[in-house]
């Protein structure tokens, strides 16, 4: 018995299908004016990768600076700008659009048996907004940057810094609308475009989790938009709404900001959870354990996600009573994540598991997200929050969730669907190596930061007391390993565009509708609209399909 499920067509005779969404039209205009969700997904993929590497380089600079206790590589204000831009770019220009706008955009219509998203032009508009926002952010960086941190805390951002708060704010505002439009498009598509027979409980879990994330995008982002507008007005004409000397409450900004930015964490992680559900099911040849529980836990996270924002403000002067409510609700929102982790683990039970790259990344996700989630409880319990918040503990916590969770999931998804997107396989061995390197590098980078945080090292410090140096050196060393781990996929994925093996329709023997059509797919996805006549993750159905094909060919 071989230890892989990959079934590739005979490489000597196999060809990439002549008609596909990539070859349909040529020329740069056909890309820039496209309405095709797959092409827009590719546009997004290129642009978010670009921003990821900018944000990544900034992270590299941060780690280099922190190699020594003094602020010797950069002046403190440069350091402040670097970490601010790192946060802004990574969150608004990479993590929020990463899985939904690329993988989600590409696959959502195919998974539910539709020809496109419901609003293709809005989809394209969303990308243009994203690019406009991105360019504005880049311009800001060139023009001198911003040093408010990604949280734009008032009154610092409104009255006390002289950097480009307005342009950055505008960039975030526009990027917000880009993500509103993506979310809106997904919700409409999932509600209205499902093919015959595709009931809610036959949807792949990837669709469920993107649906939950979309709800958060649509309902949360506008509040961020208004908060930023108010900051801009406060900064330009001094309206006093966040200015304590005029009777305003600076904490109100944080209420509005975190009303979006806490759900934003779920916007970032939920689609990643969807990817992991798909990958784990495919590589263990089993239906996801407790499909309904996993589906509803996504929705539960989305709903509860709106009730917990003030846990970012426990020590910042919210009332003790409000603290009690928000802390309690925070504990509740941790439960659905726990459910997911255990359900994934039990999906493996009595499966038939293989260990291709996406599966390795998914395992990485499970381990790191478990740590990230559990350390979140440290911060949700108000007592320990006092000691741990605003330190490297919180930095480590959200990097475990965002980088260890989301980025792992993104890479899992990218490798998993790469054959579908491009028609070619990525090289397996080196990508497995990259997955392992990433995992090791990640732990080296961020685990020491938990200890640093417990020791009390504050976040956003350009210099620190010398006794923290050893752990910081570890962290920086790990970051260089992590950097290699991220660089490798870029190299071999680009390489594979030309030299990768021809993948065929369904290299993983997966059950999703997207795998039942050619790779790369046609512009209209399906020659004719499919009819869903089986449950999601029905591997027996797949077997019967194959037998039928063999019979008909024979």
């Amino acid at each position, binding site marked *: 018995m071989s*230890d892989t499920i990959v079934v590739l067509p005979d490489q000597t005779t196999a060809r990439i299908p002549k008609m596909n969404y990539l070859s349909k039209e040529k020329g740069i205009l056909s890309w820039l004016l496209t309405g095709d969700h797959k092409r827009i997904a590719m546009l997004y993929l290129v642009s978010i990768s670009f921003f990821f590497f900018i944000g990544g380089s900034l992270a590299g600079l941060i780690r280099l600076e922190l190699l020594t206790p003094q602020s010797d590589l950069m002046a403190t204000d440069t350091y402040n700008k670097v970490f601010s831009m790192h946060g802004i770019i990574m969150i608004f220009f990479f993590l929020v659009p990463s899985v939904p706008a690329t993988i989600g955009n590409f696959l959502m219509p195919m998974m539910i048996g539709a020809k496109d998203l419901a609003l293709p032009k809005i989809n394209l508009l969303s990308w243009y907004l994203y690019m406009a926002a991105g360019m504005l952010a880049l311009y800001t960086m060139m023009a001198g940057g911003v*040093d408010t941190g990604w949280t734009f805390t008032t009154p610092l951002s409104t009255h006390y810094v002289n950097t480009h708060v307005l342009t950055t704010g505008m960039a975030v505002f526009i990027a917000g609308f880009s993500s509103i439009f993506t979310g809106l498009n997904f919700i409409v598509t999932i509600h209205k475009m499902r093919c015959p027979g595709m009931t809610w409980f036959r949807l792949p879990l990837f669709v469920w989790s993107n649906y939950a994330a979309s709800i958060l995008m649509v309902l949360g982002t506008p509040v961020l938009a208004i908060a930023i507008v108010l900051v801009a007005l406060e900064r330009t004409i001094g309206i006093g709404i966040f200015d304590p000397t005029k009777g305003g409450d600076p904490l109100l900004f944080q209420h509005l900001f975190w009303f979006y930015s806490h759900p934003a964490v779920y916007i970032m992680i939920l689609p990643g959870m969807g990817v992991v559900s798909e990958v784990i099911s495919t590589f263990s040849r089993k239906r996801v354990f407790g499909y309904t529980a996993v589906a509803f836990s996504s929705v539960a996270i989305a709903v509860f996600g709106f009730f917990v924002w003030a846990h970012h403000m426990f020590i910042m*002067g919210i009332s003790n009573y409000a603290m009690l409510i928000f802390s309690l609700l925070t504990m509740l929102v941790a439960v659905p994540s726990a459910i997911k982790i255990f359900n994934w683990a039990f999906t493996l039970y009595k*499966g038939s598991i293989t260990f291709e790259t996406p599966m390795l990344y998914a395992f990485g996700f499970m381990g790191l997200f478990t740590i990230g989630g559990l350390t979140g409880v440290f911060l949700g319990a108000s007592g320990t929050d006092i*000691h741990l918040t605003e330190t490297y503990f919180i930095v480590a916590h959200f990097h475990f969730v965002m980088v260890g969770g989301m980025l792992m999931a993104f890479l899992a998804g990218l490798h998993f669907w790469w054959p579908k997107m491009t028609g070619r396989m990525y090289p397996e061995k080196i990508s497995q190596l990259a997955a392992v390197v990433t995992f090791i590098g990640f732990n080296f980078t961020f685990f020491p930061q938990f200890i640093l945080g417990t020791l009390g090292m504050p976040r956003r410090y350009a*210099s620190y007391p010398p006794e923290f140096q050893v752990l910081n050196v570890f962290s920086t060393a790990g970051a260089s390993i992590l950097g290699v781990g991220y660089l490798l996929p870029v190299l071999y994925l680009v390489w594979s565009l030309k030299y990768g093996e021809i993948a065929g329709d369904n290299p993983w023997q997966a059950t999703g509708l997207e795998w039942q059509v050619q790779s790369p797919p046609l512009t209209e996805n399906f020659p004719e609209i499919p009819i869903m006549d089986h449950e999601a993750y029905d591997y027996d159905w797949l077997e019967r399909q194959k037998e039928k094909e063999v019979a008909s060919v024979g």
Partner: protein
Amino acid sequence: MSQISPVIWQFLVKWMTNFALFPPEASKIAPEMDALYFFMVLVSLIGLTIVILLVTSFSILYSKKRHPVAVQIEGSTMLEATWTIIPLGLFLIMFVWGSLIYFRVYTPPANAMNIYVVGKQWMWKAEHPGGQHEIDSLHVPTGQPVQLTIISQDVFHSFSIPAFRVKREAIPGRYTSVWFEATTPGTYHLFCTQYCGTEHSHMIGDVVVLTPDDFKKWLAGSTSGASLAQNGERLFASLSCNACHNTRPDARGPSLANVYGSKLNLSTGQQITADDAYLREAILNPSQHITAGYAPIMPTYQGQISEEGVIDLVEYIKNLNSDYRVQQTTATTTLLPESEGTAGPAPAKPGMVKQ
């Protein structure tokens, strides 16, 4: 060993000699918080171990080589209920435990010694009631609950002492408080943990914990002459507060003797305890805090007194146990113009009063 480059060698030496894994516990609350912390670490480790064990054992047992055909399982309500309820229970324990600690940290005991802390870009200024000022450092005695009344003059800062496990945001325009009781003499880190602008990482200092005797010596050795209340008294006089706040029968303002800690009936019908925050608000935004029976004639002092000046006034009012002091102050005020040679009401320049 000689092959190892000196840089790495230095690093190893440093590691062996100067490597912290856990912060010192130097306050009464620290062990309590650490108990919860280690409980959480334990729960996390168990949870993580379970997940890792499940994943690795299933990966070994049910790899494609050993287990070529998957057995389809729909799910198990029992199991799912288990891993819903057990984490929920644990999380709720952590919630209750955490909240208890939270309330302990933020509810100062009645006998706490009060120290005022003003945060500004980019320094901490601590003011002891006896008038001792410190910049970027804080001297406290062991065995005595110390309450910090914190305020920021500009942006959000956060006063953090990791060794005590306490931290509190310094908010512009509002007093916050935190308390601790130091247990071990020594010097500990003091950080600003809320990002506050360019020199954020230099807004650090030392917390020096002394034995009660040493602390007394330190207090005696670093006094600047006048206590906060005395400074407040002078400010009270120079702002002519006593023109209204006195005990004369026709006084336009309420008498402030023993006002601190008492319950006041406001003109809005609310009842409020006169604490530090109330006194501060009543000076800066008087019209929202009128005592019942008085006309809203008090002018605002917003923008005229620095935060330090307000602290002096608050401290003065706090210590007003009888009207004797006010009358004395009244007497001084009448003397002031001649004695200081200034004509008319002295301009309320806080800088003049406090340096």
